[in-house]
């Protein structure tokens, strides 16, 4: 009936995020001056989970911010009606901090480009690193992930759908679909 294929299930997502949490701590030698920033909507949820895992490992929480990048998109005037804007919530000073930017799927890289612009308007971090759950290729900008849950070769006419319990009220999974299918 469909050509959907499930790439990750609840457990693999959990293990991947736990591994990313460990890798973030390893690369940054602990949680000193570390901050997480999740990109709405999927990235924000993943960032919350990674924050929880880091707390399990280190015993303390790292600051978490949520970024809405809509106003920084480079295709704002190309799309028809304006997309809905949601609030950006970053209540700590980014200057001098090591920021780990978190998103669900890394595709063309344009979302990350917008997020970098937005972050720099908030302060001058000492470093910005990128963590994603899925890297699906097809980059249009010189951007790469420092931490990736899974690399998946995709064709351009496929969609990667990340289902998360907090948003979709369904069990976590990642599904590869033909474009346009619900």
């Amino acid at each position, binding site marked *: 009936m469909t050509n959907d294929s499930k790439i990750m299930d609840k457990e693999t997502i959990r293990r991947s995020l736990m591994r990313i949490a460990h890798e973030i701590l390893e690369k940054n030698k602990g949680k000193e001056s570390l901050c997480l920033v999740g990109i709405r909507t999927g990235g924000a949820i993943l960032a919350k989970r990674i924050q929880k895992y880091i707390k399990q490992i280190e015993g303390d929480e790292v600051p978490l911010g949520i970024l809405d990048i809509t106003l920084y998109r480079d295709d*704002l005037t190309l799309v028809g009606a304006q997309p809905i804007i949601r609030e950006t919530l970053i209540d700590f000073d980014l200057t001098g901090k090591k920021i780990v930017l978190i998103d669900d799927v890394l595709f063309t890289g344009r979302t990350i480009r917008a997020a970098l612009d937005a972050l720099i*308007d908030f302060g001058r971090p000492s470093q910005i690193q990128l963590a994603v759950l899925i890297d699906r290729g097809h980059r249009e900008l010189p951007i790469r992930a420092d931490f990736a849950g899974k690399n998946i070769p995709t064709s351009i006419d496929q969609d990667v759908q990340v289902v998360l319990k907090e948003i979709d009220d369904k069990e976590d999974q990642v599904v590869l679909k033909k474009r346009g299918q619900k």
Partner: protein
Amino acid sequence: MSGWNKGDLLDLKDLTRKDIETILETAKSFKEVSTRDVKKVPALRGKTVVMLFSEPSTRTRVSFELAAKRLSADTLNVSVSASSLSKGESILDMAKNIEAMHVDMIVVRHKSSGVPKVLADALTPGIINAGDGCRAHPTQALLDMFTIKEKIGKIEGLKVAIIGDILHSRVARSNICGLTKMGAKVTLCGPSTLIPAGVEDQGVKVTHNLDDVLKDSDVLMCLRLQKERQQEKYLPSVREYVKHFGLNKEKLKMAKKDVVIMHPGPVNRGIELSAEVADGENSVILEQVTNGVAVRMAVLYLLLGKKEK
């Protein structure tokens, strides 16, 4: 997607309840931008917004200009005294010349009702009405509704009293339209000479006694007594007006403890509001001004995203 499909904002009559909700919701996110260190986002980079004001204005003009600048649009001001209007050019001709220079949005204020509509029908750039005569001032009503929603959490079912010179007030007309659309119960209160005839048809109640609305209103919206209209003998005297319709500390004792007091500005201290009430803890007058920037950012953002009119 927001589902927004309008290129002009002339009157709240043209908006649905859903449209108003979209603007208020969008404005909520824009409020945060003005609290940042870098108060600017690139959303409207490369767009040009022209302010065409043929009536004095501080709040509205500054508010629109800040809203446009914080979205990275370029703005310019055309003031009538220094423009070719003073040489006898019609406003339509002047606006057509501005259009010929490829601008994207014209924000217009004019003493005659209907001027924004005439411009919107004739021109390609989007038109925002920043107040036309006694007819409409849609962004003021939107920011008032935003403030009410922020303060009380909802608009539906609230009792809102609009007090003062309703007859000459475009703010009142737009608020009546917007608030009733959003489900508020609106009562107008003022001397009978300053309440337009037949206004009850718009789904509002009318009273000439301030005590009637003081007791159970959730919001008291006081309007400026337009002193420039005093020659026209609508009132026996300003003193008599203050006695019957001015809000002071004594009268406020009758009101709900957490009543929200609003005023579109500029305030005549000691006339429609005593200084203590204007600066008191129930007053949200300056918050209205803060919210005005966020609401106008939302309007510019939504309208300029719509390519074709």
